[in-house]
């Protein structure tokens, strides 16, 4: 495998509905932005692409990938669509990485989209719930927010996590997005606002849950030689990892924790893992990505994380899967301030000021505030991480409040419900 670099990226403004454009034209917006940001890149230099969108139901169009390919003017170059629920974008990014790493392409584009406004929210919930076993799960009351609520109830029972700790994640991500013009929801909230918002699936309120969205994102990956030609601020893809778990939550085993180098078996006496409180796929993806990137202590060696916070609860569960804290400590970690931006006033008090901003998580605002146009989401995370590592947040967002100072290493984490496919990729400043 040869080294792979990200050289450019683009995102369409995420919105509740984009009736003014079809999906191809929304992808084109993100693609054009990426092309413009790498002015030396021309269409003929692109060798291949990978397309990412989750649901044929939302699009009501099969083979939508090829329709983006032709709209972007990339035919007859090789392309394929990848799909893996909410992790579709992350899988797409890694597929494009493989195209370049293997030598099949010197420049490969990863583009993705979702247009979820074409049906009502409750019909959208139904479409999403079809990503659960249609014999045993969907007919019982298929609803993803319900599934994640059951997981966090078990997390609360097992570890003492509280709804207020979940709410702190919502406050953080919405407030970060206040400085991100690409985000769909830019709000300053209090813990009480989150808890008083309408209950969706106990204990998750509307403000604990991401929203459906129309949007697209695009990443340009290149070999070392091409990266040097295309930009003086490349970002190195230092490691990739992925994992899986059973579709039915009911089927998740209750065994021993898969340990990271920072953990010991004795840390988890009596803990049955992953059960429904943790994501074995997330832990496996992290472990493989860290091994590939030669990271032994993620909390010390990673400067920020863009992770899949479809729910405030899944952000907390993911802190643990990624080893930012130990299993069971996610709730406390969420309110420690470590995952907040050190320069923003969130209206919250943190116990130890020195720990604030140790590892900002979702400085972009994450899915909760940016929106979750599924096929675009994992690529959006890559673009935000790319801008962070380039130090170009101000250029792209016209505001540098959420620029992580001197960011050298970032992690992106993409997750499919209910923890079935997860990818983790480690990006590093390459200049």
């Amino acid at each position, binding site marked *: 495998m040869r080294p792979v670099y990200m050289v450019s990226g683009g995102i369409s403004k995420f919105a509740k509905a984009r009736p003014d454009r079809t999906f191809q034209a929304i992808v084109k917006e993100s693609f054009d932005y990426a092309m413009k940001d790498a002015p030396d890149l021309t269409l003929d230099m692109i060798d291949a692409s990978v397309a990412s969108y989750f649901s044929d139901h939302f699009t009501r169009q099969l083979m939508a990938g090829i329709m983006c390919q032709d709209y972007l003017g990339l035919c007859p170059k090789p392309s394929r669509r990848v799909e893996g629920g909410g992790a579709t974008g992350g899988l797409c990014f890694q597929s494009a990485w493989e195209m370049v790493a293997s030598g099949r392409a010197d420049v490969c584009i990863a583009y993705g989209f979702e247009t979820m406004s074409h049906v009502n929210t409750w019909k959208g919930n139904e479409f999403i719930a079809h990503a659960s076993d249609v014999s045993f799960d969907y007919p019982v*009351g298929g609803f993803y927010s319900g599934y994640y*609520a059951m997981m966090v109830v078990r997390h609360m029972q097992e570890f003492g996590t509280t709804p207020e700790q979940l709410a702190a994640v919502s406050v953080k991500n919405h407030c970060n997005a206040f400085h991100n013009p690409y985000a769909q929801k830019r709000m300053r909230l209090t813990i009480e606002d989150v808890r008083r918002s309408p209950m969706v699936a106990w204990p998750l309120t509307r403000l604990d849950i991401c929203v459906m969205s129309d949007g697209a994102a695009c990443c340009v990956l290149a070999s070392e030689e091409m990266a040097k030609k295309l930009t003086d601020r490349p970002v190195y893809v230092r490691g990739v990892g992925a994992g899986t778990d059973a579709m*039915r939550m009911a089927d998740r085993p209750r065994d021993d924790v898969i340990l990271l180098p920072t953990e010991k078996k004795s840390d988890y006496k009596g803990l049955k893992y992953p059960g429904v409180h943790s994501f074995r796929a997330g832990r496996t993806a992290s472990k493989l990505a860290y091994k590939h990137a030669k990271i032994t202590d993620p909390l010390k060696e990673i400067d920020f994380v863009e992770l899949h916070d479809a729910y405030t609860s899944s952000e907390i569960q993911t802190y643990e899967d990624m080893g930012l804290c130990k299993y069971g400590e996610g709730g406390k970690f969420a309110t420690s301030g470590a995952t907040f931006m050190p320069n923003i006033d969130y209206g919250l008090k943190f116990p130890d000021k020195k720990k604030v901003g140790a590892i900002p998580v979702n400085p972009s605002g994450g899915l909760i505030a940016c929106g979750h146009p599924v096929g675009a989401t994992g690529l959006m995370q890559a673009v935000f991480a790319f801008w962070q590592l380039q130090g170009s947040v101000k250029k792209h967002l016209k505001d540098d409040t959420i620029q992580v100072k001197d960011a050298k290493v970032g992690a992106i984490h993409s997750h499919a419900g209910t923890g079935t496919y997860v990818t983790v990729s480690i990006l590093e400043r390459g200049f």
Partner: protein
Amino acid sequence: MAKKQNPDMNDPQDKMEETEEGTVLFNVPFPRDLKHLKDMSPIIIKQPYEIIYIHSYGQDSPFFAALANKRLISTKCPKCGYTYGTPRLHCMRCGAECDWFELPQEAKIHTFTICHFGSQAFLSQCPFILILVEWEGVNTLFLSRLVGADPAKASLEWVGRKVKARFVRNSKFAPTDVYFVFAD
């Protein structure tokens, strides 16, 4: 039928057959100058989409036959001993073919939630309670509904509470043919 004189001439009878169902919009605005077309608002139409699937439960069919007989069954691996709360014919651990066994009708709540919102198909049932059911000595769980509990009184104390199975009188051959109620 009279033969056409000139084969290239249109026959006035050659018209696409038109019907009048659906919404009809008369007089769609259109600019004189085509350069204004880029300012045009998008045309948004409704398109219905309905499908009837022929869904086979395949190797899981005995589970649904058991529900219709007010019995709960699942599978156990004869090779590694792994026991499933939701049946699967092949063991997820070792790949061996599993055998059917009868589950007790008393169990406990592993976790739960109250759905105040949901998918279109279940909106009219909100709020409803989802639970993952746990049996002693069974390695995996089962997704079901809890009926009869007050959604307003949801609390962590529900986790671990004993429940018992009840069955609908007229089987719909769905996993909701069984549901649970508090047994303590």
